[in-house]
């Protein structure tokens, strides 16, 4: 029975190690802020389920939400579904059974999570939506939405491109199932007019491929002189190198920030970035739910609360630069 004993020992050892890891990461909400945080709220469990992929954008949103959890002394749990709508619905249902007192979700695909949200509402759990879903938060049972209206953001971007004198804008869409991204391109079309969408096949998962796809499109259509990227990593790692490779003078605008993007703006390679301030989206979502649990507040007045669009251009780039490199903007 020697071999079985080894297997049992390995299984037991890994169980203990992993349990040790979990107790470290699970208690950060209560333990870390011993000086400032009031841990008497640790009996409030606030949960967040997003469609995030752990990349540059979502890690900032998560950081904001975690910070709010620490500052308020609540127990905070974050789950993300990596753009899988079914997994997001299953995670929301798991949170409803798992003792969450309040839940914040992102709703890029509202149909998919409709039933899960109805379950949460039936269980009396207060809900907010964040980041995506500004048009549908009421149907899903949330009392407000924290984020940026994508159509407004698109319109502002279109206006900026028009002022800069562009003639045709390319709008690469990096996520397949996010109506918010589609809305940004639609908004740009409203104010600018000549906007063409391009569906990227791998998006953020394969930036080299995204660059190749954008480059192919730019080379096949010489009338395109501007690119409206919808994500900072797409802008710096795909759109910018693609534009430089074609040798033409192509204006680039993007949505959301990263250290590289702000540097590119300071250098003049990227014209503007629309900042939806996702750190605040995470932070505010947790704070709004906390106030609801604490004192019954339903803020927002039945309308969405906007965290953007803010604009980062060459003039204010240096201000934002350090924050973006630290991963909080």
């Amino acid at each position: 029975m020697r071999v079985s004993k080894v297997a049992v020992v390995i299984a037991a050892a890994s169980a203990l190690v992993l349990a040790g890891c979990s107790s470290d990461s699970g208690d950060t909400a209560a333990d870390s802020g011993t000086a400032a945080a009031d841990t008497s709220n640790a009996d409030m469990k606030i949960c967040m389920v997003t469609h995030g992929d752990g990349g540059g954008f979502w890690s900032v949103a998560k950081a904001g939400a975690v910070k709010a959890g620490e500052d308020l002394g609540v127990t905070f749990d974050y789950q993300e579904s990596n753009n899988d709508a079914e997994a997001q619905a299953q995670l929301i249902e798991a949170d409803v059974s798992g003792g969450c007192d309040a839940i914040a979700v992102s709703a890029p695909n509202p149909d998919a999570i409709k039933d899960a949200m109805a379950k949460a509402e039936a269980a009396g759990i207060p809900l907010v939506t964040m980041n995506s879903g500004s048009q549908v938060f009421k149907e899903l049972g949330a009392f407000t939405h924290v984020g940026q209206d994508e159509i407004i953001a698109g319109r502002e971007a279109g206006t900026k491109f028009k002022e800069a004198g562009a003639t045709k804008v390319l709008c690469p869409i990096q996520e397949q199932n996010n109506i918010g991204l589609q809305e940004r391109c639609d908004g740009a079309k409203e104010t600018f007019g000549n906007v063409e969408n391009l569906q990227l096949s791998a998006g953020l998962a394969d930036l080299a491929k995204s660059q190749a796809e954008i480059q192919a499109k730019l080379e096949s259509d010489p009338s395109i002189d501007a690119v409206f990227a919808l994500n900072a990593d797409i802008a710096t790692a795909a759109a910018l190198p693609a534009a430089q490779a074609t040798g033409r003078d192509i204006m680039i605008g993007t949505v959301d920030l990263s250290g590289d993007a702000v540097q590119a703006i300071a250098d003049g390679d990227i014209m503007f970035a629309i900042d939806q301030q996702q750190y605040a989206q995470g932070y505010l979502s947790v704070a709004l739910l906390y106030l609801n649990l604490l004192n019954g507040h339903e803020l927002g007045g039945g309308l969405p609360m906007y965290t953007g669009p803010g604009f980062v251009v060459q003039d204010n780039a240096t201000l934002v630069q350090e924050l973006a490199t630290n991963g909080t903007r």
Partner: protein
Amino acid sequence: MSTAIAAGDERLARSSTFVRVMRRPEIGALMGAIVVYVFFSAVDTTGTFVGLNGAARWTDVAATTGIVAVAVALLMIGGEFDLSAGVMVGTSGLFAGLLISEYNMPVWPAIALTFVFAACIGLLNGWLVVKTGLPSFIVTLAMFFSLRGVNLGVTKLLTDTVRVADIDEGEGFESARAVFAAELWQPYGFKVAVIWWVVLTVIATWVLTRTKFGNWIFAVGGDKLAARNTGVPVNRTKIVLFMYTSTSAALVGIISLMRLRSMQAGQGVGEEFVFIIAAVVGGCLLTGGYGSAIGASIGSAIIGMAFIGIAYAGWNTDWSWLFLGLILFVAVLTNSVIGKRFSGGRK
């Protein structure tokens, strides 16, 4: 020969019931499942994993994996792979969704047509494998990429976006939802997909162990040439197995469509490896000829428990993938250790 000689004949070894049970292919998976269950109960921060509430959640995840994993297991016992099973889930959902939302077909005829369509894809897979003699890995990989492109291209062509929505406005949606996406046993909320999963596992196990066709599956996977020489219709068996795999993927696609009221063009991509993992954890050999459908279901249960268990443990989501990999490795290790120990031909 008298029974006295037979009783003393050392060529006829008698194994104890315990050893005979331990030799079954699914025992290793069951041990692994128990280890995983105990582990997640221990690290659970919410207190709900152990009860029926937690069970309702992980059986749901297990069911949507398990329905196809059972079919993939039968196919693997028959000696073939199907890498298009994952994307087939998305394709079927999109096919039904487009019929309902773009062409205003009532829901039930759309579902029926989707099953026919899936059977045709399975038929195509099987026919290509037996006619060309190419490894099924390659043939179905080509089908995977083709379907992935078709999913995106056709959806964009017909809807200008990459998802189909408004399925709930189709005629007959409510009754279809009741069959494919209902919830039972409130307040726990078990999904009806679990019933589909259990029933299909029972049927598949019965076919595999009690019918002639089941024997043919083992024969074809074990030694194709010998099977053909003894009169087993090898080609027909393989084609039927491919058709069953595609139709069970279509079932999961329909279940998802009814549940999510929409379908995105990328749904299901990447799941094909999860199905194979569930089958292998359950005791199927990659070389074919050995395995069980119950084992694949137990493998799916492990995957379901891991997904929900990691969420309930409150672990930093960045580490989820690593934990999933480790858990699956431990499950397969336990499985193979127990298998080796008890199938060594000893008493």
